């Protein structure tokens, strides 16, 4: 292969030209086309929405623990409000926290830096993506203030409940919710095109496919999964909107429509969606565990092909969400088999991560703790999915708290543990300062222990038959037993502890922004290209565009003095 550095000869970085600009605040921070600024916009929006989603969880968990009581900081939770809280908690956490932070924030920030170019290929389209996303968030928030309140038909929005205001009692909320979600989809479709095109085309000379850092691969695969699966739901959402606003009857059985069509359209997207958020989180963990065990990723190609295989299989499992919805039992058979099959590649990835750790020189930094915490918690989540993927046992478990605990044991690691791993790891690069390690560790333990104390009791409650989306169990003699109520109270108290410890993170984050110890260019002694740019990188990222000479995980290479070997150093 031709000497990579020579391929850079004709490229002229713009960094110097832009440094001469004296851009005002609005142009520099609000209307920026710089991928790093846009990433920050997504990150902060996602963090803010997480506060709202967490507050909603506080509201409904307090109601469940102390039915009918006045909730401090909220008021009395009525049945209608309970459903609104539950619906919007789920919607916000998936679409306005997990996706923007894991994909849009980390993707935008890391991709150009890690592949060694100066920005995304379409910076203005990138800005438009964020603006559409922000609009969608504002529309959703607006839905909380309209007459009759926000949408209360569950985040899955099944018709006829979601289609008919006579049933859901939230005519304004239902439509605003749907418009917000559809707009968010469009924003991510546009963003995805940017990501995939940039990674395919704009890599530094010498960065072949197998030298791309795993997190970048994962974000690309996730973007492709998203783009391939969301289309039918966009179409379905338009039809649902027409049912709501114009009184068409696509999903109305009384007029020959079919509610099951919505379910299929929703889950055809909904299932790949969980891998859309899982893969970036696993990518972040891959980066973190290699750097902090000073060891190569155990089997790069295996993980890559497994991730692709997971993505492909994810299109064949969707109806496991509908086992008891009245689908043909023969379909249920097929989907059981495919669902059990998909657990294999994911388990394999976890094993490869464990193999990466074995024999490594482990540094228990805060990011590493989060990475290890992810593996531990996600393992529990994944294993419990087996019970739900088998249609026979799912007949019992469907719509119980067993499902809720399963998806929180997967989603919480994905959306929060993965994000904390990424934030604590890349904070020095993003902001040029180090976060406080002690506070970071306090935050870690104050999160990982309570989260288990929330959801382990909920597994037990689900096994005992507690159904989801129930305002109060006091009406059900079998569920009103003290033992079960104790489980619910335990979960709620643990949630409050969890929320309290997030204040430690916020304090750490904000004070480190302004008073953290100044960070070096490469404080973690990592290999990937972003650690060769300044902390934080200037507009244009690199003073000299880098070329790449090896893969990203050459740690502890034999024969070298240093235990790391940056990608851009010539052989």
């Amino acid at each position, binding site marked *: 292969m031709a000497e990579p550095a020579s391929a850079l000869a*004709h490229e002229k970085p713009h960094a110097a030209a832009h440094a001469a600009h004296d851009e005002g605040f609005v142009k520099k921070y609000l209307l920026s086309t710089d991928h790093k600024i846009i990433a920050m916009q997504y990150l902060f929006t996602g963090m803010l929405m997480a506060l709202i989603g967490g507050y909603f969880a506080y509201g409904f968990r307090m109601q469940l623990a102390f*039915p*009918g*009581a006045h909730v401090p900081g909220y008021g*009395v939770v*009525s*049945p*209608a*409000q309970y459903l609104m809280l539950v619906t919007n908690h789920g919607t916000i956490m998936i679409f306005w926290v997990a996706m923007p932070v894991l994909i849009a924030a980390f993707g935008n920030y890391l991709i150009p830096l890690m592949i060694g170019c100066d920005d995304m290929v379409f910076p203005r389209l990138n800005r438009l993506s964020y603006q559409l996303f922000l609009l969608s968030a504002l529309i959703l928030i607006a839905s909380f203030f309209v007459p*009759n309140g926000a949408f209360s038909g569950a985040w899955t929005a099944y018709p006829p409940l979601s289609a008919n*205001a*006579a*049933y859901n*009692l939230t*005519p304004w909320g239902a439509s605003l919710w749907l418009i917000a979600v559809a707009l968010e989809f469009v924003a991510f479709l546009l963003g995805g095109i940017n990501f995939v095109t940039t990674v395919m085309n704009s890599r530094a000379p010498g960065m072949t496919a197998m030298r791309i850092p795993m997190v970048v691969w994962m974000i690309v695969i996730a973007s492709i999964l998203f783009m*391939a*699966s969301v289309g*039918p739901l966009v179409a379905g959402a338009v039809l649902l909107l027409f049912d709501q606003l114009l*009184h068409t009857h696509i999903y109305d*059985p*009384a*007029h*020959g429509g*079919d509610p*099951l*069509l919505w379910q*299929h*359209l929703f889950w*055809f997207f909904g299932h790949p969606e969980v891998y859309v958020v899982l893969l970036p989180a696993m990518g972040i963990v891959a980066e973190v565990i290699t750097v902090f065990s000073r060891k190569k990723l155990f089997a790069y190609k295996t993980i890559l092909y497994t991730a692709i295989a997971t993505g492909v299989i994810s*299109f*064949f499992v*969707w*109806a496991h969400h509908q086992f008891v919805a*009245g*689908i*043909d*039992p*023969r*379909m249920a058979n097929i989907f059981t088999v495919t669902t059990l099959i998909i657990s294999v590649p994911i388990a394999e990835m976890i094993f490869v991560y464990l193999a990466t750790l074995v024999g490594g020189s482990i540094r228990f930094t805060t990011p590493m703790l989060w990475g290890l915490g992810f593996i531990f918690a996600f393992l529990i989540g994944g294993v419990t999915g087996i019970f739900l993927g088998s249609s026979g046992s799912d007949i019992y478990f469907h719509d119980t708290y067993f499902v809720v605990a399963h998806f929180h044991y997967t989603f919480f690691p994905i959306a929060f543990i993965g994000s904390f791993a990424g934030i604590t790891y890349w904070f020095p690069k993003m902001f040029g300062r180090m976060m406080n390690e002690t506070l970071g560790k306090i935050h870690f333990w104050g999160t990982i222990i309570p989260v288990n104390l929330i959801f382990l009791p909920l597994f037990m409650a689900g096994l005992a038959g507690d159904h989801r989306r129930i*305002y*109060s169990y*006091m*009406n059900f003699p079998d569920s009103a037993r003290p033992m079960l109520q104790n489980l619910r109270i335990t979960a709620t108290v643990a949630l409050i502890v969890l929320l309290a410890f997030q204040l430690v993170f916020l304090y750490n984050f904000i004070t480190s922004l302004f008073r953290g110890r100044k960070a070096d260019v490469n404080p973690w002694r990592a290999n990937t290209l972003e650690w060769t740019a300044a902390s934080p990188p200037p507009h244009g990222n690199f003073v000299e565009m880098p070329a790449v000479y090896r893969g990203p995980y050459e740690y502890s290479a034999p024969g070298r003095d240093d235990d790391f070997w940056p990608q851009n150093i010539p052989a």
Partner: protein
Amino acid sequence: MSTAHSEPEHANAQLHAHPNYIQIWGILVALLVVSVCGPMLGIKAVTLITAFGIALVKAYLVAKNFMHLNIERSYIVFLLVTAVGLMVLMFGGVAGDVMDHQGRNWRNLAAQEEVNRALAGVAGESGAEQKGSTPGPAQPVAGAEENFKIVCSPCHGEKGDGKGAAAVALTPKPANFTDPEFWQTRDKAHIEKVITLGGAAVGKSPLMAPFGSRFSAAEISALADYLMRLKQ
């Protein structure tokens, strides 16, 4: 072309021989004519082949020659074919539930009735305009007693005494319509307002949800009358 960065763009420009596009257009138009005429014969197989088969051929010609997929990288073709394949997959997984109106252990009665009703309507016509299906009731126009029983009694009790099954979980307790004292401070207009806008609209508990989108004004008026008759 912008001058400063023309070099890499030139390297990437795909200079290729152009087929006779007008000739291809001519073929497309001819196929269009066939696809319009074919169905006029009224034979179903011919219609399917000419209308849809030709559509496939036309799409192929446009994709190959106008979009230059014949000289594009093969993985692009693969990508597009995969997208189509996913739609076939989706169709396969969903059609069994949506396209069919009965399966091994189930029947979609509403859809079957809709089909029968509409076909009977079409058969009974002779040239008159067929607009659409007879509109079924969007919501049952039920009497006040039935509405109360279905919607209100879970909280307010079957007798309206505030002791419905759900009342166990509610604080404050639902209104007791049998209590004469309750009616001393409330009139029909007040009751209609509470039903329509919810308890919070009159300074009472938000546990009483707004049902203005569930009932029509006439139904609410009838409900209010019904409630007043519960007074003892």
